[in-house]
C-alpha cells in the first residue's frame, strides 16, 4: 500500500523543483550562460556534408524489371564537441526500382585518445575490407554499381547472390594508426558489434542493402537447404540481437609506400538464437597507384553454418526443437563462399575510364552447390566536372547461371558536398 509523502517533504521537493525549473533559466538569462572555458566540452562547431546522385538504369534484355530512374541523398552531420570528441551521423534516402529506402548508415562518436588511437562507439561502417567503409559513397565510387560481392547501393544492378551487404553495425571499435615515416603506415582496428541475426523476413528485400535486410539468395537457399523457413542473415541490428554472442572482428593494414596499401580483415559471430550457428568472413584488400592509374581489389571468403534437413519455421525455432535430436552430429553444414573484384581506373584530365571485374564462385555446403557462380564485367567512363561532381556511364555485363541475361546500361550524376 502506498504511503503518502509527509507534508513537509512534499514542500521541500516542490521547492527544489521550482528552483531548478524556475530560478535556473532566470539566472542563465542574467549571465548569458557559461562561457566555453566553463564547459566540460567546449563545443566547437557543426557542419553538414554528404553526397547524393541521380541515375537511370536501362535493362538491355527482355526482363521483368523495367528501366528505372534512381536517386540517393545521404546527408552527413558532423558535430565537433571538442578537438578530441566528434559525433558524426549519416542518413541515407534512396529510391531504386520504385522502392524508397531510408537508413541510418552510421551514428558514432569518435574519441581521439592520443596521436595513435581512436575509440569509436555507436553505429559505424565496419572496418572489413575497404569498400564498405571508404568507397561506397556515390562521389567516391568510380562506377554507378557496386562490385558483385556486395548488395546494391546507389544505382544499377545487384547480383542475385551478393556475399555481403554494405556493412554497418552497432558496437564499439578501437582504431590505431602508426606513421613509420616516408609515408609508410600501419593501421589496425578491432571491433565488437551486435553481429548478424536471422533475417526477420527474408522477403523484405534481397538487395543486400543495409540494416535488417537479409543477405539475399544465400539466405534463401540456406533456408532451402534447411527445408524451408527463414534462413537469411541480417546485419545492422534493426532488430535487437538474438543471442549473447557478439561479433568480433578486426583489420590490419600496412602501406609500404604512398603507392601501395594492403589490409587483411576478419569477423566472426554466432547468428542464431542459441549461438550454435556461426558466420565468419575474411577479406584481403589490395590497392595501388602509379601516376594516373589506380588499382583496387578485394578477395573475400565467408563461412556460414546451415542447418541440414530441418523442417522448421526458422532457425531459432529449429534450435528450440534440437532437444529431440535434429541438431545432432552431422546436422550442421557450412556454406563456404568465395568472391573477388578488381578495378582499374586511369585518369586523363576530366576523363576517367574504369574497368571492374567481379567473380563469385559456387557456394558449396556438404558437397552441394548452394549459391551459383557469377561473373560481372563493368566498363565505365567518368567525366569529372569538379573534384566531387561526376557524370558516370557504365555498361554492366552479368554472366550468372541463374539469370538469362541482365546486362545493363547505367548513367549516374553524383556529387559530394
Amino acid at each position, binding site marked *: 500500500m502506498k504511503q503518502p509523502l509527509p507534508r513537509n517533504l512534499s514542500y521541500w521537493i516542490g521547492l527544489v523543483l521550482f528552483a531548478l525549473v524556475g530560478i535556473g533559466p532566470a539566472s542563465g538569462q542574467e549571465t548569458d550562460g557559461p562561457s566555453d572555458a566553463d564547459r566540460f566540452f567546449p563545443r566547437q*562547431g557543426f557542419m553538414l556534408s554528404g553526397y547524393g546522385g541521380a541515375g537511370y538504369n536501362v535493362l538491355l534484355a527482355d526482363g521483368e524489371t523495367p528501366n528505372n530512374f534512381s536517386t540517393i541523398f545521404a546527408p552527413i552531420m558532423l558535430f565537433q564537441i571538442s578537438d578530441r570528441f566528434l559525433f558524426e551521423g549519416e542518413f541515407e534516402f534512396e529510391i531504386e526500382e520504385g522502392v524508397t529506402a531510408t537508413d541510418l548508415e552510421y551514428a558514432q562518436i569518435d574519441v581521439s585518445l*592520443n596521436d595513435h588511437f581512436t575509440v569509436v562507439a555507436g553505429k559505424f561502417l565496419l572496418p572489413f575490407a575497404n569498400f564498405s567503409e*571508404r568507397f561506397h559513397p556515390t562521389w567516391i565510387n568510380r562506377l554507378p554499381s557496386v562490385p558483385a560481392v556486395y548488395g546494391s547501393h546507389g544505382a544499377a544492378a545487384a547480383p542475385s547472390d551478393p556475399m555481403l551487404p554494405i556493412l554497418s553495425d552497432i558496437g564499439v571499435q578501437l582504431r590505431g594508426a602508426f606513421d613509420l615515416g616516408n609515408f609508410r603506415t600501419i593501421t589496425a582496428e578491432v571491433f565488437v558489434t551486435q553481429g548478424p541475426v536471422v533475417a526477420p523476413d527474408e522477403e523484405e528485400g534481397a538487395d543486400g542493402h543495409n540494416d535488417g535486410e537479409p543477405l539475399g539468395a544465400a539466405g534463401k537457399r540456406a533456408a532451402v537447404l534447411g527445408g524451408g523457413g527463414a534462413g537469411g542473415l541480417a546485419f545492422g541490428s534493426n532488430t535487437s540481437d538474438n543471442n549473447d*554472442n557478439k561479433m568480433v572482428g578486426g583489420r590490419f593494414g600496412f602501406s609500404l609506400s604512398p603507392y601501395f596499401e594492403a589490409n587483411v580483415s576478419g569477423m566472426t559471430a554466432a547468428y542464431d538464437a542459441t549461438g550454435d550457428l556461426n558466420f565468419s568472413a575474411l577479406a584481403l584488400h589490395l590497392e595501388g*597507384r602509379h601516376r*594516373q592509374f589506380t588499382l583496387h581489389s578485394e578477395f573475400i571468403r565467408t563461412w556460414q553454418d546451415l542447418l541440414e534437413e530441418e523442417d522448421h519455421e526458422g532457425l531459432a525455432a529449429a534450435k528450440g526443437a534440437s532437444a529431440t535430436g535434429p541438431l545432432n552430429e552431422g546436422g550442421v553444414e557450412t556454406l563456404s563462399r568465395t568472391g573477388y573484384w578488381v578495378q582499374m581506373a586511369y*585518369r586523363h584530365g576530366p576523363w576517367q575510364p574504369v574497368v571492374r571485374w567481379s567473380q563469385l564462385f559456387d557456394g558449396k555446403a556438404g558437397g552441394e552447390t548452394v549459391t551459383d557462380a557469377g561473373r560481372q564485367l563493368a566498363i565505365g567512363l567518368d567525366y569529372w566536372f569538379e*573534384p566531387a561532381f561526376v557524370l558516370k556511364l557504365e555498361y554492366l555485363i552479368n554472366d550468372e547461371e541463374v539469370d538469362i541475361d541482365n546486362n545493363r546500361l547505367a548513367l549516374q550524376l553524383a556529387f559530394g558536398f
Partner: protein
Amino acid sequence: MRLLASSLLLFVIAYLGLANQTPVSTDTGDTPARADTTLAARIGLGAELFSRTCQRCHNPRGPAERTDREWVIIMQHMQTRANLTRKQARLVRDFLLASNDADLVPGRLRSDLETPEVTDDLIEKGRLVYQGAGTCFACHGGNLEGGPIAPSLSDDQWKNGTGDYASILETIRNGVPGTAMAAYPGGITDEQAQQVAAYVWAVSHGRADH
C-alpha cells in the same frame, strides 16, 4: 567468454593508449602554429600528405571549397575515417588553412636565389621532381594535362601568371591561396622548385616532351 576476452583486449589497448597520452592540446585549429620556421615545414608536409593520402579514396577537394572552421571539423572526421594519426590530420589541416589564408602563404618562403638559365639538365631534374617529390603529377596529371582541381600546364593557357619561367617559378615558390597549390609542394627545396619550373616551362613552350 569471447565477449569478455574481447572487452578485456579493448580495455587493455585503450588503457595503453591513454597511458601514452600527450597533454591535451589547446590548438583547436583556429590558431595553427604561426612560427615562420615551423610553419613552412608543416605546410610542406601537410601538402604532401594531402596530395598523397586523400586521393587514396577520392579526388582531393580544393581548399577554397570550405571555410577554416569546416576544414578543422572535416580533418577531425578524416582522422578516424582514413586512419590518420592525429599529427598527420593536423598537418593536412594546417596546409588547408594556410592555403585559405592569403596573408599566410605568399612570400613567406621566397628565396633570394638568382633565376638560373633553363638547361636540359635542369629540365630533366625538374621532370623527376614533378613526377616524384614535388607530387605535382597528383593534381596536374602525369602528362601535365590537368585534373579536376588543377589546370593543364601543357598549353599556353595560364590561370595564374603569364607562363614565362619567372612566373611559373613564382607560383611554385608562393603557391596560389585558396587552392591546393601549396608553396613548395611536397616540401621541395628552392633548387628543386627551379628545376620544376624549368620543366613546366619547357613542356608548355614545346621545348621538351612531357
